């Protein structure tokens, strides 16, 4: 069940399609990312101008400069966002508000980590790829659902087993239960 990709699960293309553009705008999470130099060079290959914006640790500042860039932009501008998943979708949302269409935005994911939203205590947290995790805030054992919220840039975490909300207490008791049934 959880392995089948749902419609809302974002798909990141391993290779970017060669889309024509008048101007390319690369937004990276950190200037220090090894991907930064690589993509800056790749995107500029056919001589199309590339502008670079980086986070500089402050999301608000980044959104400000993105907005400013896009308010001057012409149709034919393509936006490339490079960072972890939650970064991608925060910037994506901002870009959509500035009038870019989905078809004008490419996402380059740089890390395997995912954001998880605990539907019980509303805490956002970064997780490693695993189907079951404990919520950092309320401690519930959460099942990571493949349903992805673009607004939150996160997957949904729901209580895995209401009869054992914090997970099986010990592996021994779990196997005893199994034997009993």
């Amino acid at each position, binding site marked *: 069940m959880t392995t089948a990709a749902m419609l809302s699960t974002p798909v990141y293309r391993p290779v970017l399609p060669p*889309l*024509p*553009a*008048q*101007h390319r705008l690369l937004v990276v999470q950190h200037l220090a990312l090894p991907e930064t130099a690589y993509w800056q060079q790749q995107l500029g290959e056919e001589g199309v101008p590339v502008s670079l914006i980086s986070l500089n640790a402050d999301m608000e500042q980044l959104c400000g400069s993105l907005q400013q860039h*896009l*308010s001057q*932009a*012409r*149709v*034919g*501008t*393509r936006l490339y966002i490079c960072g972890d998943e939650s970064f991608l979708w925060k910037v994506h949302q901002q870009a959509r508000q*500035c*009038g*870019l*269409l989905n*078809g*004008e935005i490419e996402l380059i994911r740089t890390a395997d980590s995912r954001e998880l939203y605990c539907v019980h205590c509303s805490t956002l947290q970064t997780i490693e790829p695993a189907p079951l995790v404990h919520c950092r805030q309320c401690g519930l054992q959460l099942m990571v659902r493949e349903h992805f919220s673009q607004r939150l840039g996160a997957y949904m975490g729901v209580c895995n087993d209401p009869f054992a909300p914090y997970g099986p207490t010990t592996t021994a008791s779990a196997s005893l239960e199994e034997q009993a049934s």
Partner: protein
Amino acid sequence: MSELLDVRVASVRQLTPLVREFTFEAVSGDLPGFSAGSHVQVHMPGTGRPLCNAYSLLSDPQQRQHYRIAVRLQEQSRGGSRFMHEQVKEGDVLRLSPPANLFAPHSRAGHHLMIAGGIGITPFMAYIAALEQRGGSMELHYAYRSGLTDTYLEELAARLGAALHPYDGRAGQRLDIHQVLSDQPLGTHVYICGPDSLISDVCQTADALGWPAERIHWEAFAAPEPGEPFVAELADGRTLAVPGDYSLLEALEQAGVPVPNLCRGGVCGQCMTPYSAGEVDHRDLYLSDSERADHLMPCVSRGKGGCTVKLAL
């Protein structure tokens, strides 16, 4: 098919030697409302054959008392535009299909860029009225031949001022598509109406400049071109001889085999019909190459000269 409207021709104006304008009013009751970019199909009686062409409504969509269309006399006419030019007089009663819209202005566009070639100006007349009412940002690039296809030029100049960019082909003025498309603010949508060559030039240039397909909208002239006669075979074994100046759709309609249709110009997808044999001259702008292997659009496409097309109808 939805019910046809009876309308009376309230006035006819010859705008240029090639373009005639018709104003229709309801024979009784009110005309249904329409939105900018809508068209109607005009059914032409007394031609001894089912003749029916789609024309854009150019009147103000807020104006519910009448509909207005403009018809360019096509040299390659199968009879439709000639009928409108030579036969239709004030006071005549015609039947129209209710308005349908395949070419509406995009509701979220920040700026509307309209590109018209000749008689392709007609849907934009309604656009401009609608955009004026809602304060939409717009510009119009209009390519025409002065004295022949420069319909409504003065009115447009008065309404649009600097937002009108006229190009008179007779005076050698050329629309530089690349330049126009390379300098549009981010929220722009482009709309093209005119000959196929204009539409494909704009689409290709936009594509090369990185415009995504969602920002590009076009409407081709919705009149099928004549071709070679051929034979259509129906599923029940009946055969129809389709003359060169009939579309397959018209031949089917005359034989009492109605096919749902909307644009009669190969763009809307309504008339899609499966076929199992025969060589087809595909002229639509709707089907993909793989769909063409077993589907055709009878409003514009036809069998290649002399061949028999087997329809699954």
